[in-house]
């Protein structure tokens, strides 16, 4: 029974990783760009949400907001921050140097943004973890000796729903087609009349939305936020993305869930200190057997969706 419980917890934790892993895989698949600010977007949604729910708007403009509007604004902040990164890393260097992806500059500057955002939050709120309270945090559903946390089930459903919607957007809509065409061949997409400078921000909005939502779900489920909350989730999400296959949306979903499962099962069998070894060990073994990941293609940039 305990084992089943751990499997369940693993899937629910994996649901959080899925959102972040899909955000990573989108920017890699479409822009060929490893966006290091992703973990901090996750953190921003949680910390801004917490701060608003405790202090309200800055300068005493209002009373503390409820948990839901606070988190909603937190998610908007993550989207805004993501667009800022697009403007000053990706677009700026692309305009200056042609193809931004040929350079390490966007990667390094996104790392810079990661640290700047993280330290801004540290200066504002210090490094302590903060409790995030929602009225239904302790709602459980007990079935056959299992404790199923209702917020967690809802958030798993929400993250999978968002990702399924994203997949539909990519395969069915005009803008999704344009994104995939741009991913494969930006030059040919331009010749079709796609304005690449306008379509790239869409990727960053989706990135901000996915990470912000994951951050909000994390805050609700685990009742705790901190300026460092993105670091662990970010690295696990990268592991999940690589396990699933770079650039594959369905791969990122599978990978995120697998990492969540590995984590809780590893704690169950070998104790808390074994988590990193199990996750990264699994990743290395898998890469030896299947370098392209579970759902990946050998040619990155081709047939990803």
């Amino acid at each position, binding site marked *: 029974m305990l084992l089943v419980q751990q499997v369940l917890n693993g899937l629910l934790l994996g649901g959080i990783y899925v959102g972040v892993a899909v955000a990573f895989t989108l920017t890699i698949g479409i822009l060929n760009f490893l966006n290091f600010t992703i973990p901090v977007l996750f953190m921003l949604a949680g910390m801004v949400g917490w701060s608003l729910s405790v202090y309200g708007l800055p300068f005493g403009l209002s009373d503390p907001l409820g948990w839901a509007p606070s988190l909603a604004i937190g998610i908007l902040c993550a989207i805004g921050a993501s667009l800022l990164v697009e403007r000053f890393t990706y677009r700026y260097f692309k305009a200056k140097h042609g193809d931004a992806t040929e350079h390490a500059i966007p990667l390094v500057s996104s790392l810079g943004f990661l640290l700047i955002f993280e330290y801004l939050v540290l200066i504002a709120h210090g490094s302590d973890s903060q409790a995030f309270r929602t009225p239904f945090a302790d709602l459980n559903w007990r079935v056959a000796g299992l404790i199923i946390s209702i917020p967690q089930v809802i958030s798993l459903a929400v993250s999978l729903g968002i990702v399924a919607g994203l997949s539909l957007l990519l395969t069915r809509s005009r803008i999704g*087609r344009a994104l*995939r*065409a741009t991913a494969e061949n930006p030059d040919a997409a331009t010749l079709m009349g796609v304005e690449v400078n306008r379509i790239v921000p869409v990727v960053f909005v989706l990135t901000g939305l996915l990470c912000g939502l994951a951050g909000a779900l994390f805050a609700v489920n685990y009742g705790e936020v901190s300026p460092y909350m993105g670091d662990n989730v970010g690295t696990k999400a990268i592991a999940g993305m690589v396990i699933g296959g770079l650039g594959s949306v369905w791969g990122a979903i599978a990978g995120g869930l697998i990492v969540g499962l590995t984590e809780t099962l590893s704690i169950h069998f070998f104790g808390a200190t074994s988590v990193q070894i199990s996750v990264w060990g699994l990743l290395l073994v898998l890469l030896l057997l299947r370098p392209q990941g579970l759902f990946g293609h050998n040619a990155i940039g081709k047939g990803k969706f």
Partner: protein
Amino acid sequence: MQLEVAGLDVRYGANHAVRSVDLSVAPGEIVTVLGANGAGKSTLLRAIAGATPISGGTITFEGKQVQSRNTATRVKSGISLVPEGRQIFVSLTVEENLLMGAYTQTGATTHRDVERIFQRFPNLAARRHSAASVLSGGEQQMLAIGRAMLARPKLMMLDEPSLGLSPILVEQLFELIAELNSNGLSILLVEQNTHMALQMASRGYVLELGEVKAEGTAQQLADDPRLAEAYLGAQDAA
């Protein structure tokens, strides 16, 4: 004139790839641009399409200067380029490739236009939901042209469309171009296959190291012994 290019300059750093080129295309005309490898033919077409930045000169399309407009605007105003090497999207399906061609078309007619292309190219229709990567070279060229047609162009520029096709397919390709032209579409054609190009075009330009070295009617170019030796013959022998 439908298209007027005047004093066009393109530089890639120190490489002056297109030098002060003047060129024009009348409505409904077929004009060809010839020249050896590296002469600047593709660069010229890409500059007209807005896909390669220019460093000087003007491009006038239907009376409006477009050189400072982006590619999307030029596609909307009726200039389409079928690029060198086809550049179809192999990770998209055949139908999605066509829909990408109609990207700038906001009207409700897109669906009908796509069906019309499928009627014209039954080979493509049979594979409409397959990845475009399964198409043969000839089918890929048809797809590239069909895709360009979906933008409803008034001027279609084709960059070496016959490259890599068997003689029969080249024949079919040129028939298709002639047919499109007979429906009123202007054509600016870059070709290695100079015989065929001069046969079908009314006028032509010969580029050498980015400069127009000769221009005239197709007949004049075909009869010019110097050109035959320097560019045209050499190309045919290759």
